[in-house]
């Protein structure tokens, strides 16, 4: 019987501690404070992402709205919008999904994606991926941006971008090896993207605005090493390239 009493006391003590702890935690925890207003979207894990399949043909039919900003052929009407033509379908699909689910937030895209079903997103992604990418310019390799992209800057902890985005910034496609490896198909093509958009994207990664997916986490850490100048140089290189 004393056993029962002691166990009961422990249960009681636990309850008390938990109750008194809780308000304290709520007071000094900023995360908890925000959680009462907007519930953060769950982390999006892209690590198991396999290449998506979609119907480009039916995607074309659903792309009318997109053309308003991203252009009828996936080449944006203004440099603040990204070019989608020739982009990795898997990447596009994942971004649409994250707009819809809230890991990425954009005044326009969040609303647009909210109405899309999974098939729509796959079809749209496939459609834009099937379009010919924006023709690239000269293949220079001497600029500061080119050097950053191709060599990185070990002195400042900047890895070369080409490892994941390809030596020509069109993305890399490695053979599956049967071992754990990065979801290569989810890494975007950067070549021919507008400087303004690249600057915004890198800025978002650096500031943590885009950090709620496994890929964004990688870019967040890389972004942390980039200065404003670096971002400028890279944007210039990627857009002219």
């Amino acid at each position, binding site marked *: 019987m004393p*056993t029962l009493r*002691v*166990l009961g006391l*422990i*249960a009681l*003590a*636990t309850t008390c*501690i*938990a109750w008194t*702890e*809780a308000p304290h*935690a709520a007071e000094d925890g900023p995360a908890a404070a925000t959680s009462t207003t907007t519930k953060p979207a769950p*982390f999006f*894990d892209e*690590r*198991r992402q396999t290449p998506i399949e979609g119907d480009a043909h039916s995607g074309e039919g659903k792309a009318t709205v997109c053309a308003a900003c991203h252009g009828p052929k996936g080449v944006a009407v203004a440099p603040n919008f990204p070019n989608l033509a020739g982009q990795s379908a898997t990447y596009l699909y994942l971004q649409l999904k994250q707009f819809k689910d809230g890991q990425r937030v954009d005044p326009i895209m969040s609303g647009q994606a909210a109405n899309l079903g999974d098939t729509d997103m796959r079809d749209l992604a496939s459609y834009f991926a099937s379009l010919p990418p924006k023709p690239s310019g000269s293949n220079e390799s001497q600029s500061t941006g080119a050097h950053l992209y191709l060599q990185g800057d070990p002195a400042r902890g900047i890895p070369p971008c080409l490892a994941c985005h390809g030596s020509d910034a069109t993305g890399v496609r490695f053979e599956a090896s*049967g*071992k*754990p*490896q*990065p*979801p290569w198909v989810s890494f975007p093509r950067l070549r021919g993207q507008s400087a303004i958009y690249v600057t915004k994207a890198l800025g978002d990664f650096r500031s943590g605005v885009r950090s709620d997916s*496994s*890929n964004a*986490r*990688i870019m967040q850490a890389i972004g942390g090493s980039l200065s404003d100048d670096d971002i400028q140089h890279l944007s210039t290189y990627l857009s002219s390239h």
Partner: protein
Amino acid sequence: MPKQHPLATGLVWCATATAFALPGVTSAQFDTSGTQRVGNTQFGNSLDPTGWEPFLMPDPMGMSYLHPDQLRTPTGSLYPYPSLAPAEAPMGQGDWTYHWLLQFGYLHTSGDRNAEFFQQYSAWKNAGALGMLAFSALNRKTGQYVEFRGSRINDDNQYYRLRMGTYGSYRVEAFFRDIPHVLSTDAYPLWNGVGTTNLTLPPGVSPGVSSQAQVAAVAADRPRQTLQVTRESGGMSWEGMLGRDWIGYAGVTNENRHGERDWGGSMFFSYYYTTPGPGGPGTPGIQGTGGGQNETVRPVDFTTTDINIGLRNKAGAAGWLFNFTMSASFFRDHKDSLSFVAPFAPLAGSPSVITGGTFSLEPDNNYYNVRLEGSHPLSFWHGEFSATASYGSMRQNDALQAPLDPAFCPTGQFIGTTGIACANWNTTSALSQQNGDARIDTGLVNLRASFRPTANLSTYINFRWYGENNMTRYTMYNPLTGQYGFLHENGSQALIVGNLQAGLFQAGNPLYQSYFTQFANIPFSYNDRQGELGGAYQVNSHNSLGLTYTIDRQTPQQRERTYINDQHLKLTWDSHSLGESTLRFSYEYQKRTGSPYNYFPYLPWYSPSLPGYVQDELGIAAYTVSQMYKYDMSNLKASKLKAIITTPLGNTATLTTTFYGNRNHYGADIGRQSASTTGADVSFDWTPSASTTFNGYLSMESSRIKQGNVADNESLIYQSPEQANPQFGGPMYPYANFWTATDTETDANVGAAMTHVFTPRVKLDVSYNYTYSRGVNGYDYASLGAITPAYLSILTAASIGNSFPANIYRLQTLTANLNLALTPRVGLRLYGQYGLGRFADWHYTGFDGPGDLVIGNRVYTDLGPQTRWHAAVLGAFVTLKL
């Protein structure tokens, strides 16, 4: 020898070492060598065998943002997912950060909570418990750190462990721990004074005058006791830089072992006196009233202090990798004797002066060892030369006891009708020397040269010499009487058998001049030289073959063979050619031969070697059968095989399969004939995600040991000169008395363990283990001549049968652990373990209750482990952390 306090000695050594070492701390790369020292490398308990459970909360994010799943070890096993790093906080204004965790609660046992196998190393009690107290602090600028963890189930089962130091320059460790070992929970010692050196009889029992029934009645009423030994130890060690490439280390541990355990006490055979029962053959015999066996309880009260101090070099400019270690161990037994009053008179009918017995428990001893190791690269074939030399000495010089205890053979009395005066044997004046003066020195030299002449080939040659020299010399000589030999079993043998087997030899005394007895200790010593040549060849990128030949030549002194040659040939194959699997295969063949086998090499230590020995006209009864071979000395052909296959399955599972077996054939009919083992294991690990892990395993093993023996023809002893014939098949050891015994054991283990982290922060571990062992001891015999002659008119072939009932050990254990995080700082842990056991051991068959503890002149203490039990321990804990 004066008793020095071992701890004091230890502290002086340690302080000296530290004083010598600390000022020298400078910078260089430093690392530790925990696996160099014996013992205390693991701190955990039954609640948490890893000692790390509260920190094993896997990070749901995994190891990398870059890829899913975990990578594998080079062999192919999955690395577990990393644990979530505990939350840290800055400490003060400096660069220190810290975290802590406290888990406390209550443990409750139920069911057959006294079951021996439930309590064995846990000593569960209903009591408050400390699941874990952990504290850790780190200065990320200077690399100073402090880590502490401790856990306490109760007084007898707890550990506390402190590590602190500075990365790269030194580390200090300290620990304190108690480890329980419950040896019996069903003990009913007849004696009072359990735990002391004097066991006395309880009221109602008087030596020599109580009947078996009276003693049995008292024994049946004795209180149940638990016999347990607890090791309580503490220690400190230091390891640190003493200069560039030089690392010093020193440590001291002190252990107190205390408790009690089953022991014995012999007052001559009882079985001799068994007589046929009224029902004739095949019905129970009648126990006699002679002799006596006393299963007493001995105290354990030991202190051991170990000290080690050393210095090593990490191969600086000189290129020598040095390691020099000095260690010493001081063992002190605070209760170095045990005496007991025997309830029964060894000789029925007449009051006896031999009313009890005495033991010398283990003497205090000191041990010293120095070891020097060095290795140096060779200038050719990428070689390395390595040499080790070690010298050790074990010493003991305890005061010796008198041959007989004056309490049980008082001065003025004589042993029975022998005329042997107690006064001549109950003081230390009856000894040839007053102290043990025992010493064994050991030496070891190991030389090795390793080469890698090409990238694909590695070879080595190793030579090892080890020698053991027993310098102890003790002669059983009584200067008071001029007699050699000893009075067996506290004098009871002389009391019962009389001067014919008093155990004494005396030249010129017709009573004793022909008695065959050992009169001096046998200082067993030996040398062992071993040469080994080995190599591995990388056949291709997936396969490697290895071959090793070893010749091991032992030259024992004072043993049945003057030399033994053991040859081993070992073949290994390591392969990655089976898909992703890794195979490690080995086969070893061993052959042992040696000099002619002398079944009785001990004559120099027996009375026939003494001057004045008069050969009896009947000769000396053959000590043993000449065809017997002791299995450590006999010829042997053995083979051993093992294969371990590690198979990755996808990216989340691993299958590990093991096959093994060995076959040993000893060249003996009498003695161990053969031993074999065959087994297989399968283990399946599955980690579908960071939050779920599963392991399932199955292990099977069967083993068999067969031996042969031959009962001597006891009717010849002291009756016929044929008693001296040692030949198997001769009159003394006839074929008809040959028998064999076979021990066949089967073991099966099945189990599964699962861990799952539910969101948010609910972690459940469940494991189930099933162990089943079954051992059958069978026997076969040429004729009933193999059994004890006194039983010939009681037992029949039908009643003997051909085996004992099976020995069984079955245990099912279900363990569950539920961790609930109530807030980030407060959690709840619920622990439950349920055990269901079954046990059978024919040693304890028929010992069903305290009323069964006395049979004939034998008094037992222990009923043995419980045959069927189930018990549970439940715990509830609150976890608080930073």
